[in-house]
């Protein structure tokens, strides 16, 4: 194959990778159901790291029996699906499953700290990027009510839409 063909093919390949990556996230943002997640208080020393805010949610740590555990032999690193009840202001976890639940909204996550009655779950939405230096500003407002608006698609993928402090979307200028 001559170099010109290779050049064009590889350029197209890059466009596909970049476009696919954007498309995958845009699909979740545009088709996903919007839910509000309550963030749990985080030690301020841990919250701001570099140019992003570390987020922890109420649904990041789940306890049995308040949340149904489909099995009691879950392992760290395992992919799980968390059933969500969205009737109230905030989405709350209802169960931990190894397969997508047949009905209702669910969010996909990875188990990180497992015991027989408690699991920690990471959803891939634990970082919120802020402009350089603005993390401190958020840190100062920490004592207040911090929520995160998230889009969750039909496969359980989640993307952060916005960060809310006292119900107001945070916007940076």
């Amino acid at each position, binding site marked *: 194959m001559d*170099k*010109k063909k*290779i*050049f064009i*093919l*590889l*350029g197209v*390949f*890059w466009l596909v*990778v*970049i476009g696919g*990556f*954007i498309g995958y*996230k845009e699909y979740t*943002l545009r088709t996903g159901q919007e839910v509000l997640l309550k963030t749990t208080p985080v030690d301020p020393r841990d919250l701001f790291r*570099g*140019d*992003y805010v570390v987020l922890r949610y109420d649904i990041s740590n789940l306890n049995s029996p308040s949340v149904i555990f489909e099995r009691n032999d879950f*392992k*760290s*690193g395992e992919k799980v699906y968390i059933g969500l009840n969205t009737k109230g202001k905030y989405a709350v976890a209802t169960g931990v499953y190894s397969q997508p639940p047949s009905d209702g909204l669910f969010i996909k996550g*990875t*188990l*990180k*700290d497992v015991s027989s009655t408690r699991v920690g779950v*990471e959803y*891939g*939405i*634990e*970082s*919120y*990027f*802020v*402009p*350089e230096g*603005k993390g401190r500003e958020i840190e100062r407002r920490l004592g207040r009510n911090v929520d995160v608006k998230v889009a969750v698609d039909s496969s359980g993928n989640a*993307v*952060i839409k916005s960060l809310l402090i006292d119900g107001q979307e945070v916007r*940076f*200028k």
Partner: protein
Amino acid sequence: MSAINKEQIDQWLREGTITQEQANKMLADSTEYRKEQSSNKLVVAISTIGSILLGIGAILFVASNWAVMPNLMKILILVGSTFGAYWAGYYFKYQRQNLPKVGASLIFLGALLFGATVFLIAQMYNINANSHVLVLIWLIGILPFVYGFSSSPIAGLAALLFYIWIGLFVFKGLDFYRAQGDFFKLPVLYLVSGVLMFGIGALHYLSEKLKGVARVYRLAGIKIAMVSLFFLTFRFFSGFYEHYSFFSRSLETSSQFTFGFVLFSILAILLAVIALMFNPSKSSTNILESSVALGLTGAALLFFFFHATTNIYVLLFNLILAGIVFVLLFVGYQREDMQIVNTGMFWLSALILVRYFDFFWDLLPRSLFFMVGGLILVLGGIALERKRRQLKAKFTSVSAVSQ
């Protein structure tokens, strides 16, 4: 091709193989060739450094997370500069063919900017900062360029990303204090991944045009394996702890770590056996190289699955590192490969230095410890440098004759 040295030309002249006129011509051509080579190296060095600086600048620009621009504009800037560098690289190297070295550096810059674009998009969608997936996408994105353009610098970048990805993948979703077993076993995972990379490099010798890439992979494999072995010579990583307790956690490894380790070990063994049987690199020291690869994987498996109640593994890995150093020196000498000789000499010095600290720190008075240590370093350094120069001169003159 390599330059012919003056001594060789004088010898041919004395023997009557060539005339004085031919000798003058050869000497002039040889000098010209050396100048050209030196200039080429300078161009490559300057343009590569320039590309790396531009790449770092672009990545830092992304990292500064400039807020005033809309997302679309940010993407257009980075995608535009990525494809701009890529196109300019292609234009200079293949279309116009007037600046091939600069062109290669610009294609390499494109590969760096592609990574910056991936990280920018991740930042826009608030994807977790330490996600292994991002490094994997970068790696997958640049891998076809290694083969499409037989690019050695991109092969080096791919090897580096592969190692970074391993580290991030192992700890995905794990906090440090819950993943201590994985942390302590990390060097042994990197050891087998180094052996695996060495095997992958050997396979690339099957293609004539990928020889440069094959060498990059093999050197990357040797380097990471040596670093890992060095860590394993310390009791901290390979020793026995009778009452280990840190946050009351055990030293068990996670299932994802064990799976990755076993998978890499199987692949490393498979490739070492293939190399042993078919010798794709046509190496004169193939049996030794493949046997060492198999032996290292075997030692890693032994250490991973059979816990000792003594510090036997510390001793074992020290012996293995010393053995590998001599294998490197031997293979480097046999193949007249200065880079391998240098690697061997570097690790020989490192091993002597740390073991000197280990054994004599408590035994000698401090003043004597530092004086003897300093003397060993100075004399050792002189001896190693002298030997290195002798070998380099020997290899150069042999390669000149063989051309």
